[in-house]
C-alpha cells in the first residue's frame, strides 16, 4: 500500500515540472481570494499551456524582474499594484496587468504595458446618477495623488452628460469629513471613490449620515458599503476582469503588438442596490 502511494506521489511530482520556459509568468502580490479568482478567470480565456507563478509575499526580497526575465515567458501577467510596480522595468516582454486601481501611479508606462483597470467607467456612475437618481450635481471628495486620474476621467464624462461635478480635495480622512460638511445644499448625489485617504470606517459613517440627513443618495464602488448607508454600488467581479485580461493576453500571444491592445476598463459591472435606503430616499431602483 505504502509503495503504491509513493509511486502515485512520484508521478504527481513529475507532472508539470517540464514547464521551465513558461508561456506566461504570473506575478502577484499576495495569495488573496480575489486575486485567485481573477487568475482563474484569466486562465479560462487566455488559452495558455503553461503558467509559472511568483507570489511576492512568498519571495520576500527577491529580484522578481530578473526571475521573470530568466523564465523567458512570452507574456507577464501582473496581478495587483505591488506586482505591477515590481515588473515595471521590464520593457522587452508584454505585460498585462489586472486588479490595479490606478495603474498610472505605478510608473509602469512602457508601450509593452496594457491591462484591465479596476475602476468602473465614470460615465456609468454619472449616467446612473443623472437618470436614476435625478442628480445633476454630483459631489466627490478625493485625494488627487491617489484618484486624480479617475477624477480627470469623471470631468470629461460629466461634460459629455451635462452634469456638474462638485469636487473637494482631502489629503486625509479628517479633512474628508470637514469637506463633506461643505457639500451641504451643493450636491444632489455623492459618489464615493476607492480612495484610501477618504474611505475609512469612520468616514463611511459620516458619508452615510450626510446622505440620510440631507437626503442625498450615496453611490459606492463596492457592495459592502450598501449595509453602511450607500443606496447603490457598481461592483466588479475579479473573475470577469480576469477573463477580460485573458482575452487581451490571447490577442497579444496571437501576434498583436501590446500598444495596439489599449488598456480597458471592466467590461462588466453589476449594479447592486439597497432597496430600503432607496425607499427611504423616495427612489425606485432596480438591480
Amino acid at each position: 500500500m505504502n509503495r503504491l502511494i509513493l509511486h502515485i506521489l512520484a508521478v504527481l511530482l513529475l507532472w508539470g515540472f517540464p514547464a521551465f520556459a513558461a508561456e506566461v509568468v504570473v506575478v502577484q502580490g499576495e495569495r488573496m481570494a480575489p486575486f485567485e479568482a481573477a487568475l482563474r478567470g484569466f486562465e479560462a480565456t487566455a488559452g495558455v499551456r503553461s503558467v509559472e507563478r511568483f507570489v511576492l509575499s512568498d519571495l520576500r526580497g527577491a529580484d522578481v524582474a530578473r526571475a521573470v526575465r530568466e523564465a523567458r515567458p512570452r507574456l507577464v501577467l501582473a496581478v495587483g499594484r505591488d506586482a505591477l510596480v515590481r515588473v515595471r522595468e521590464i520593457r522587452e516582454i508584454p505585460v498585462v496587468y489586472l486588479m490595479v486601481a490606478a495603474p498610472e501611479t505605478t510608473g509602469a508606462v512602457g508601450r509593452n504595458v496594457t491591462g484591465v483597470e479596476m475602476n468602473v467607467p465614470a460615465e456609468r456612475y454619472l449616467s446612473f446618477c443623472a437618470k436614476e437618481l435625478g442628480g445633476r450635481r454630483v459631489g466627490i471628495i478625493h485625494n488627487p495623488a491617489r484618484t486624480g486620474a479617475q477624477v480627470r476621467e469623471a470631468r470629461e464624462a460629466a461634460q459629455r452628460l451635462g452634469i456638474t461635478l462638485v469636487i473637494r480635495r482631502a489629503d486625509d480622512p479628517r479633512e474628508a469629513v470637514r469637506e463633506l460638511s461643505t457639500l451641504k445644499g451643493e450636491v444632489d448625489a455623492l459618489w464615493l471613490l476607492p480612495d484610501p485617504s477618504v474611505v475609512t470606517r469612520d468616514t463611511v459613517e459620516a458619508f452615510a449620515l450626510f446622505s440620510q440627513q440631507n437626503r442625498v443618495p450615496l453611490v459606492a464602488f463596492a457592495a459592502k458599503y450598501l449595509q453602511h448607508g450607500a443606496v447603490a454600488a457598481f461592483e466588479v467581479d475579479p473573475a470577469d476582469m480576469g477573463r477580460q485580461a485573458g482575452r487581451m493576453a490571447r490577442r497579444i500571444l496571437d501576434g498583436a503588438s501590446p500598444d495596439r491592445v489599449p488598456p480597458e476598463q471592466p467590461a462588466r459591472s453589476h449594479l447592486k442596490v439597497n432597496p430600503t435606503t432607496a425607499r427611504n430616499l423616495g427612489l425606485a431602483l432596480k438591480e
Partner: protein
Amino acid sequence: MPAPSPFNTAKTRVGTSFRRFSSLLLGLFFLVVLSILTAPRTVHADTDSDRELLELYYEPHDLTVTSATRSPRPLSRSAENITVISADEIEALNAHTLADVLEKIPGVQVAYNTAPGAAAGFEFAGATTRHIQVLIDGVPLNDQLDNFALVGGVPVQIIERIEIVKSPVSSAWSSALGGVVNIVTKEPSQHGPFTGSASFSGGENGTRDARGEFSGTIDRFGYYLSGGNLQSNGFRPFSATENNNLYAKLRWNLSDGGSVRLTVNYLKTAPQEAIVLDLISSRLTNRQLQSTLALDYALTDRLTFNAMLKGTRLDYNRFVTLLATGEPYLPRTVANDEKTVGGATTLTWRQGLHTLTGGVEFDHGSSEFIKAGVKTIDVTNDKYSFFLNDTIAWERFTLTPAVRYELTSHAGDHFSPSLGATLSLTDKTLLRFYTASGYSMPLLNPDYASQERGWTLQAGIESSEIPYLWLKGTWFRNTVDRITAYEYNTDTWEEIRLSERHVREGVEVQAKTASLFNSWFTAGYVFTDAKNRRTGDEIPGVARHTWDLGLHYDDRTFRGAVTGHFRWWNNPGGGGQYKDFIWDLNAGWRFYQGRNAEAELFVTGHNLFDGKQYPLEPYVNPDRWFEGGLRIKW
C-alpha cells in the same frame, strides 16, 4: 506557620504574588488609558498595499488564506475541512480563552468549561483532545504524557487567526489523528512605533480579566508584547480559576529581504476541578514556557527557506484534597515535568504548477511523572520527521498530495500519506475531496502506549450561488483503529486492556447570510454517528447532534450578537443534562472613534435562560451570569 487550607479559592490560594500582578496590570491599564487620552496622536503610515486596497472593496474574511500544508494557500485551494476564526470574530465574542472560542465552532464539543479559565476539554465530532494538536506559532501546546492541551489557559488577545482542521493532518503536523487547532499569533504592527490596546472586564463571582498589548515597528525592528490576568471564583463549589500570561514577539527584517523572529510565550493556569465522588476536590497548576527562534529567507527567486529552533518547558501539578478533613489525598496527587527542545527546517520551491514544501524536524522530549510522591514514569523520546507535500494548481483544479515519515526512539516509525483535491465548478461553487491516514503518537504514559491509526474520507461543497447566502456542507467518515480502552471483569474486578475500532460518520452543514441592515445570521449543524465496532454500540459522550445559531448586528458604533449552541452529548450514565440550548448575548458600544484611537464598552450575558449543558455531573455549566468591560485601542 499555619498550614495553608486546601479549600482556598483561587484568590487566596495563589496568594499575594498574583494579587500584586493583577493590581499592577490594573494600574498599568489606567496609566495607558491616561496616556492615550493625553498623548499627541501618532499618524499611521499611508501605504497603498494590495491588501489595503482590496480591503476597500472586500470584507477582510473574503481575503483569507490558510496554512494547512505549512505553506500558505487560499481557502479555495484547500481540500481539508478548515474553519478560520479571525481576531475580529474573537473580539466580537468577548471571549476570555481559546476554550470560549472553540465552544462556538460548529462540530466542536467543549466540556468542563465551568468558569473562564477552567480546565476545559474539547472534541471534534468524537475525536478527543488526545488526538488533536493545538499549536501556537507551530509549537504544540499538548503535553507529551497524555497529549492533553489546556485550551482554557490560552489567552485570546495574542491570536491573529485560528485555523481549525477537523480531520487527520498527520502528513503535515505529525500526531494529529483528530485534527489541528493552529494558532497564528499577531505580528508587530506596521502602522507606527507604538500602538496597542488595553482592556478590563469584570463580572459576577469575582470574574476579572485585565489585558494589555503593545506593538509597533521602528525601522527594521518590530515588536508585539502582551500580558494578562484572568480570575474567577467560579460558579459552582470548587471551580475557581486563575490565569496569568505573557507573550513577546520580536522581529528583525534583514537588509536583503529575510527576517529573524523570536517568540516567548508564558502561560500559567490554576483552575480548581470541582468535587469528585462527593469526597475529593483537586486543583491544577500548569505552567508552560514556549520559545522559538526562526529565520525566513529567500535563497533564490523560487526557493524559500525557513529554519526554527524551539524549546518548551511544562510543569503540571494536580493537588487533591479530601473534602472531609482538608488533608492532601496522595493517591490522586500527580506532578509532571516535561522538557522539549527541537528544530525544524522547511524548503518551499515554486515551479510551474507546483508549490512543493519539504522539511525535516527533530524533537527531543522528556517527561518525569510523579504520582503519590513516587516517580512512576521517567521517559525520553527522540523524534525525527521528514515531510513533503505539493500543491498542484491547474486552472480550476488543485491537487495536494502529501507524505510524512517519522522515526521515534520511544514507539517505532510512522508513515502517513494524504491526498486532497478541489475543483471550482463555477466562480461561486467549490467541490472538495480529501483522504488521509493519520496517527496519534503513542503517549509517554504507558497506559496508552499503543499507536492509534485511522483513515478519513471527506467530500464537501461550498457555494454562494444563492444570493445573500453562503453554504458549506461536508460528509465525513473517520475510522480509528487500536484505540486503547479499559474495562473491569465484574467477577474479579481486574482491569482488562482492550484495543478497539471506532467509526465516526456524519455530515456538517454551515450557513451564513450576507449582511443586510448591518445584520446577518449564522447556523451550523453537525450529525455524527459514532460506533464502537467491537461492541456494535454507539460510543457514549460523542455528541450525535450539535447546533449553533447566531444573529449578529454591527453598525460600527453598536454591535451585538445572540448566539445559541446545543450539544446532544449522548452520554447516558454520566449524570449530565443536555436538553437545552445555551443562549449568550454579546454587545458593544464604540463610544469614541477617533482617527487613531477608539474605545468600546462591552457586556456579555451568559446562559440567558439558565439552560443545562454538561455531559458529566460534577462539571455543571454556570447558570445565567453577566460581565462587562472597557476596551481601548490606539
